[in-house]
């Protein structure tokens, strides 16, 4: 077996703790406790190994990474390892002093989440009075001449605000905005029915995005992520299993994608126990769905197999119980009709806000009703 090509990016989930309670959160329903989190020294070792392996970017994420009191130390170790560092934050806790310390530690860019363009609606969706902190955080980032990305997870409750969200991004002088329709993992999967947009909402928002693209002519970079439940083609999840990036979760569990902890029998390696190189190149978990050999029909003979890699393994498992099945988001999947049924209009249930240690009481039926 030839060694796989090196990874480009490392998603560092520094903590699962977060002041926000977004119902669309892709963190697992069973959140890692703070007492199990890696130390700053362990992260420094991971960043050094990642850089030697070929990683160029790291996203310092969570949860809310600002809840780590040692975030400055962690950031410095990533920058010292030669990695390009991006803070992925809600903005809550990003004071001028904190940001100055992070910039001094080598922080390169900031991605800020926004839940809605309207302050009251944004705070409702976040389950926390966070909007003012976000606005202030954006201003602090721009004052320091750092690139600012705004990330909005879109769903039934904010898709209609797309124009206002774009106006916000312009007013806050964002360099880019990611308009990402909810991917249904973790808490987002639990809340799927409550978050599912209508086809009409999506079509209208898509047209608005096109209008903004023309109007802004590249001065603000727009990424529009359509939801795979509606597109008929699976997303090229993570650019392929073990192909582009790796995720290290708060306790060191190392995964090909942030949602992969849900896959039974994956036997996910931990970065404390094994070298990152062994994990990337040789661990059974990273090789389980790498390449095309594992593929079932109709993927194995599909001409798109090297473009979308059969879609998402975690979604295939969540919806069919079998991670090696074709992603039901694919129109060629025998499970596709059952997936389409989930997108039909109905009365949405209330949102369940994310919170720690609630998993046991929140078992919801998220699998497809496959005959």
């Amino acid at each position, binding site marked *: 077996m030839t060694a796989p090509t090196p990874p*480009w990016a490392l998603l560092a989930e520094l903590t699962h703790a977060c002041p926000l309670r977004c119902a669309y959160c892709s963190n697992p329903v069973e959140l890692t406790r703070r007492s199990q989190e890696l130390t700053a020294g362990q992260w420094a070792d991971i960043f050094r190994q990642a850089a*030697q392996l070929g990683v160029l*970017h790291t996203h310092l994420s969570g949860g809310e990474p600002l809840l780590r009191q040692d975030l400055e130390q962690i950031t410095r170790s990533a920058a010292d390892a030669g990695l*390009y560092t*991006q803070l992925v934050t809600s903005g809550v806790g990003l004071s001028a002093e904190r940001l100055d310390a992070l910039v001094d530690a080598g922080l*390169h860019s900031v*991605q800020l989440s926004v839940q809605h363009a309207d302050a009251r609606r944004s705070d409702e969706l976040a389950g926390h009075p966070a909007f003012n902190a976000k606005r202030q955080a954006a201003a602090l980032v721009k004052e320091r*001449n*750092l690139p600012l990305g705004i990330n909005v997870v879109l769903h039934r409750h904010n898709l209609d605000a797309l124009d206002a969200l774009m106006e916000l991004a312009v007013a806050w002088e964002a*360099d880019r905005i990611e308009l990402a329709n909810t991917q249904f993992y973790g808490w987002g999967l639990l809340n799927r029915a409550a978050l599912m947009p209508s086809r009409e909402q999506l079509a209208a928002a898509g047209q608005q995005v096109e209008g903004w693209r023309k109007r802004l002519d590249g001065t603000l970079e727009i990424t529009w992520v359509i939801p795979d439940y509606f597109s008929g083609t699976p997303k090229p999840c993570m650019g392929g299993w073990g192909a582009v990036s790796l995720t290290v979760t708060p306790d060191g569990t190392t995964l090909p994608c942030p949602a992969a902890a849900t896959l039974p029998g994956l036997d996910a390696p931990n970065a404390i126990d094994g070298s990152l190189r062994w994990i990337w190149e040789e661990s059974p978990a990273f090789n389980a769905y790498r390449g095309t050999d594992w593929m079932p029909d109709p993927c194995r003979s599909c001409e798109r197999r090297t473009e979308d890699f059969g879609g998402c393994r975690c979604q295939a498992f969540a919806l069919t119980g079998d991670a090696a099945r074709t992603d039901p988001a694919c129109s060629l999947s025998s499970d596709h009709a059952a997936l389409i049924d989930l997108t039909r209009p109905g009365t949405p249930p209330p949102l369940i806000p994310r919170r720690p240690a609630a998993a046991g009481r929140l078992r919801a039926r998220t699998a497809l009703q496959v005959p």
Partner: protein
Amino acid sequence: MPDTSTWRPRLPPAARLRHDQVRNTDVLLLPERVIVLHGSGRAVLDLADGTRTVDEIIAALAPDPVPDTIRDDVTSFLNKLHTEGGLR
């Protein structure tokens, strides 16, 4: 697309130029993006510091008189990078 007669290309503050030892290539790092630099891409960007026009960058790299192919290649490289947010 910028007016190439007056444009003095420079990297945005967020950009980092560096050598990737693992892949043995030069790269331009931006938020969420890596641009792999082939051929004389690195040499061109080392000159794109906001003080030189496109013509001056080309003149510093190419023989005199400048072959049309080099002028076209460098100009389209700089324009493409500008479109992708890698130059100002």
